[in-house]
């Protein structure tokens, strides 16, 4: 075999846009897949030297350790505001936020809606794993009806705890939103589609076409109490029906740009 392992046969290697640091994510958590796709896109588009990432408060709080780009750590939910401040001072740089569903859809609702309404020229990678991972699996705005979490121990009761929020659909209603889509990380085909969407989102920003967001359905094996493989199945069977994959907003200018 060893003879195979020669440069000219190389078809895939760890992205150079990554640092050498191993992630702190739980085994099989697809946060890691999302990270890898972003790193691949940054590398392919040659953006590492002028990209500034904004890490959330959530399991991805240490995202800044893994990408070989400048990074800042935002307050919980405020990444879009922080990204706005950066982008307005560095208009020709690429600024992206990476946020979980508690961060973006719960405490950060005001900031994300207004960043989208302003057509803020930033890219948002939104990880929807249906719960609060870092703090121990509490209910998130994306937690499915009836789903048990540490703060909905008898299953989310929509009567008293409300209904899940479909962020992509909601933000798509805003004129300022340029590119808003939902993808999933549960199998190879969808991972490829997810990467395409991430690439498009960064292209949109590069061409100053406005606010772009890719919502990614992601797993949380640790808090779902499932194995990584079971988690992918659960995501496919339970999350996708409630959070349909698709393009919710592709502004004419973007469609025209044929990215």
């Amino acid at each position, binding site marked *: 075999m060893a003879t195979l392992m020669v440069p000219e046969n190389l078809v895939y290697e760890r992205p150079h846009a990554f640092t050498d640091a191993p992630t702190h994510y739980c085994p099989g958590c697809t946060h890691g897949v999302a990270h890898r796709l972003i790193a691949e896109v940054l590398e392919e588009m040659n953006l*590492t*030297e*002028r*990209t*500034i990432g*904004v*890490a959330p408060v959530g399991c991805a*709080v*240490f995202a*800044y*350790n893994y990408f*070989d*780009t*400048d*990074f*800042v*750590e*935002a*307050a919980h939910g*405020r990444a879009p*505001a*922080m*990204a*706005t*401040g*950066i*982008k*307005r*001072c*560095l208009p020709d*740089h690429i600024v992206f936020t990476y946020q979980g569903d508690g961060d973006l859809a719960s405490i950060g609702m*005001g*900031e994300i*809606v*207004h960043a989208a309404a*302003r057509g803020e020229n930033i890219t948002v990678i939104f990880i929807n794993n249906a719960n609060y991972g870092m703090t121990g699996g509490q209910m998130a705005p994306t937690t499915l009806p009836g789903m048990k979490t540490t703060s909905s121990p008898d299953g989310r009761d929509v009567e008293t705890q409300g209904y899940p929020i479909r962020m992509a659909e909601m933000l798509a209603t805003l004129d300022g939103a340029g590119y808003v889509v939902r993808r999933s990380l549960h199998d190879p085909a969808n991972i490829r589609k997810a990467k395409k969407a991430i690439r498009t989102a960064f292209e949109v920003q590069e061409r100053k076409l406005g606010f772009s967001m890719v919502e990614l359905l992601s797993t949380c094996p640790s808090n779902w109490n499932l194995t990584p493989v079971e988690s992918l199945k659960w995501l496919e069977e339970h999350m996708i029906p409630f959070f349909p994959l698709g393009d919710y907003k592709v502004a004419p200018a973007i469609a025209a740009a044929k990215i």
Partner: protein
Amino acid sequence: MARELWEGNQAIAEAAIRVGLEAYFGYPITPQNEILEWMSKRLPELGRAFVQAEAELGAINMVYGAACTGARVMTSSSSPGISLMMEGLSYIAGTEVPMVLVNVMRGGPGLGNIAPSQADYNQICKGGGHGDYHPIVLAPASIQEAVDLMPVAFDLAEKYLNICCLLIDGSIGQMMEPVELPEMRPVVRKDYPWAVNGAKGRPRRILTSIYLDPPEEEKTNLRLLKRWQEAQEKEIRYKEYFIEDAEFIVIGFGTAGRVALSAVRAARAQGIKVGLFRPITVAPFPYKRVAELAQQVSAFLVTEMNAGQMLEDVRLAVNGSVPIEFYGRLGGVVPFPDEILSEIQRVAKAKLSADADPVANWMKRMEMVAR
């Protein structure tokens, strides 16, 4: 440059612009709307960044982001809006990036009213956000002083990688005085060794306030404290009036201080040997100087437009060596000079004890006034 008649809020905004402000993020609130409105007109025409944020919470976090790029950035608000910035301010302090904050205080607590007040002294000087950090706080008493302190504020923020707050009230914000503004300076984006502006030809940079390992966080806290001690040694500012032969001294900051000046003059005209000490840096507070003065005088009279917040700093400075009296007005009421004059007359006559509780005594007098 020639003197022009300026409204306080507009003068402050224009001064910030002329000393190189690159970005402003804010949200409307009386009595400081004129700052935001001035910025909304001037910054776009100068090609600089202006965003009316969705709220103060958004504004302070936009400032946070902008500050991380090394840009000269500020925001302004008034009491309730400032309260919404506390988490953000703690993050900014913990991340060690510079910013300027203007608080045009109004009557509170709660929604209160839009009248001038000084009741946010403790909030900004002692600890509004969580954790150990100390913003530098400047308290001008006139529009010219505010304008002159604007470049100082940015320089201090950048020198100490800290928040620098201009603490004023609605009367300074909305009055008009002849002012000389600084010349318009060109904007220069400094390339700070910490600023995130793209890892081109250098190792990447990270700006964060997390230190999961407590000993690391402790080191950070000590680093902040050391800078704070340095500021305490080097940046103290105050103004003294009629101090040389003063037998006792009135202490007040900002508007309360300038109202006291009228009272002190009137008292002097009556032959009362009273002086006035007006701190300009209220944080760091001029503890040393007040302690020195305590050796010279027989008593202090502290006057504030709050219930005795700076009073505690004066007490810490005096450390029991001489009696301290207090006179405050609350909730947006601005004292007239004659009120303070009669307090001066009272103190000039009264037998005072260094152990008495100045606030308790003042409350008794307030009740007699029984408004």
